[in-house]
């Protein structure tokens, strides 16, 4: 009888747990669907910002909370996504820059192939990278238009890299692939950019995809070098990377519009044509006419929902456990066959891709459509840090809560500035840095795992204590049979 009830309770628990497991998502989906009905226009804009920050935080949370890798330059990926989308939709790269830019992206892709296929490192990697760089410089001068020059370039590049592979013994065929990628991506890139220039800008979806690809390439390359570092070195490297990217946004005016005008007039992303079924459906949900901003709200929060589900799935999967093991103890994970470096890079690229998507959504924000280098500065990376830390370092839902709390805090401080209180002769204004700095310190000292984990742990512990005492009572009451 004991086994039966035990089995039954397990059975009940097993049937119940998927339903219990899905409950939070259903509630969350309903919340998203009905929110615009009860909320005024100004709060819709705030909710869109919260959504965009939530996507960023979910990505950063996976990197910092689960895999334990600190990044102080995450705003760079946010910026890369935003600028890719903005440039490709509104401000296509001018003619003279296209060959160089395409060759640059080609080089990035070739390097990624070189690393991922041959897993080369140290001076051998430096030699390979140098060879690819020389090929790119040589290639970008030769006008790569027309079939013959392209085929010639393919032959030359793959031959050179194959020879290099043989010489430094890292597998000639693998090296050849990187040579091929260099030429193929350069040619494709140049063709794509010229088409975009001719069309005066593509539709936003292609912009988002291009942003994800570019950010992914850069994240892989940076991650491959950076993630071999530990603790504070890694924080410093990501900080340096973030600052360099912001300086490039600010100074490369021909492409990014620089810091004076940034890029303005970016169109929003329409998800429905006005007479379609979806539009009327959302209109009904919304209770009022479906303004572009509310339509954009549904798009952003749909992406948040997908990001959340994907992240929780990853955390509760084999790779997720491997990442958390890396955070727990890297040497123990290695001893169990977990290739820690590979998973650190995967989670780094995953968080960068989420950052890029958030950047694209920020660029296409309905009714605003404007980006400026100051929105991707070090202070933004710190704000993301605060959101992840407040929400909870190892909890996906915590990242969502962190985005909510910090955005509401910023709005509240906006009102505080409006009120213009004077305390001891000092006008209370510009409190953001103080409040965020104090929050970081307080949370790290009092509640290192953050709000959600702190609450979740205490609830879980009390529940477990309750079930254990209940089980002990049934056992003592029935008397152990085995």
């Amino acid at each position, binding site marked *: 009888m004991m086994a039966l009830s035990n089995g039954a309770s397990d059975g009940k628990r097993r049937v119940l747990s998927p339903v219990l497991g899905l409950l939070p998502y259903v509630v969350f989906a309903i919340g998203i669907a009905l929110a615009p009905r009860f909320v005024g226009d100004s709060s819709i804009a705030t909710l869109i910002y919260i959504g965009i920050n939530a996507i960023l935080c979910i990505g950063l949370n996976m990197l910092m909370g689960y895999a334990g890798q600190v990044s102080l330059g995450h705003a760079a990926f946010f910026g890369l996504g935003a600028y890719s989308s903005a440039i490709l939709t509104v401000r296509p790269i001018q003619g003279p820059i296209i060959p160089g830019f395409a060759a640059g992206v080609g080089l990035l892709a070739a390097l990624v192939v070189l690393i991922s296929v041959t897993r080369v490192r140290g001076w051998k990697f430096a030699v390979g990278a140098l060879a690819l760089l020389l090929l790119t410089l040589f290639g970008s001068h030769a006008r790569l238009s027309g079939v013959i020059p392209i085929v010639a370039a393919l032959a030359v590049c793959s031959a050179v890299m194959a020879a290099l592979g043989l010489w430094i013994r890292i597998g000639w065929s693998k090296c050849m692939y990187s040579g091929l990628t260099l030429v193929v991506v350069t040619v494709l890139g140049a063709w794509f950019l010229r088409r975009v220039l001719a069309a005066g800008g593509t539709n936003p979806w292609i912009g988002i995809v291009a942003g994800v690809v570019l950010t992914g390439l850069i994240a892989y390359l940076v991650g491959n070098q950076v993630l071999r570092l530990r603790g504070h070195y890694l924080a410093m490297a990501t900080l340096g990377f973030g600052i360099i990217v912001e300086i490039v946004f600010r100074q490369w005016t021909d492409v990014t519009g620089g810091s004076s005008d940034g890029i303005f007039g970016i169109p929003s992303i329409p998800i429905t044509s006005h007479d379609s079924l979806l539009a009327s459906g959302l209109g009904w949900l919304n209770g009022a006419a479906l303004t572009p901003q509310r339509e954009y709200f549904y798009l952003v929060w749909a992406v948040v929902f997908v990001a959340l589900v994907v992240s929780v799935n990853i955390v509760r999967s084999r*790779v997720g456990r491997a990442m958390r093991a890396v955070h727990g103890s890297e040497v123990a994970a290695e*001893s169990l066959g977990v290739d820690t470096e590979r998973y650190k890079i995967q989670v780094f690229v995953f968080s960068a891709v989420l950052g890029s998507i958030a950047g694209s959504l920020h660029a296409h924000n309905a009714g605003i459509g404007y980006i400026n280098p100051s929105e991707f500065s070090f202070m933004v990376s710190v704000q993301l840090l605060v959101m992840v830390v407040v929400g909870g370092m190892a909890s996906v839902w915590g990242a969502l809560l962190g985005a909510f709390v910090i955005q509401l805090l910023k709005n509240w401080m906006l009102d505080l500035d409006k009120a213009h209180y004077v305390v001891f002769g000092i006008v209370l204004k510009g409190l953001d840095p103080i409040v965020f700095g104090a929050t970081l310190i307080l949370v790290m000292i009092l509640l290192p795992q953050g709000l959600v984990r702190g609450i979740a742990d205490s609830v879980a512990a009390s529940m477990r204590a309750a079930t254990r005492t209940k089980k002990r009572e049934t056992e003592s009451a029935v008397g152990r049979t085995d």
Partner: protein
Amino acid sequence: MDALIELREVSRSFGGLTAVNRVNLQVSRGVTTAIIGPNGAGKSTLLNLVTGVIPTTAGDIAVGGQSVNGRSSSEIAAMGLARTFQNVQLFENMSVLENVMVGCHSWTRQSIVSGALRWVGHYREEKLIRDESMQQLEVVGLQEMGDCPSGSLPFGKQRMLEIARALASRPKVMMLDEPASGLSSRETEELADLLRRIVANGMTVVLVDHDMQFIMDISDQVVVLDQGRKIAEGPPSVVQNDQQVIAAYLGTEA
């Protein structure tokens, strides 16, 4: 008998100090081998050399017939070599069951994409991992504590969990780094009993320890190290009476 672990003229020096000095060693399938020696004899260094945590200065190490040098410790582990640590290295941010599930990593295939999108193979493999892990927990008697955070276990249980986790990676050979240290006599007995059961299931175990009593009645083969050199090798009874070992290790017992 094919040798699972083979060391040929292996040595390792840190600056001036030679921690391991031209050691030759063979661990054959099914033979429970113990590596003993006074503190600082180079036992742990030897263990770190075999598991690839630190590179060798000279000599060659082979696991399951394949050479090891230049490979990362995760590649070596995937060759079927599991280990535990002197000071327990649990994943404290994860539950007891999850710790063991990480152990199943090397023989499972699901990628980040199949995990994210819950591809068809995902659920099948998750169930496989969960069952294997529960089974290993039952072997060490921790199946009740599956959901508790691993950090909350008492020290003895943590050692057991580490062994269960190592077993979950289906190794050909297991190397235990001072498993008995810090255990009460009852827990040491429980550990010895567990090891006997594991060896009975066909697992080759290598023990690195200095608890003589625990070693002697478990191992088939004993290797004695002193100042990085191998000074004796053979069954426990022979080694126990070897004068050189007594002089170097047991000191003035009389």
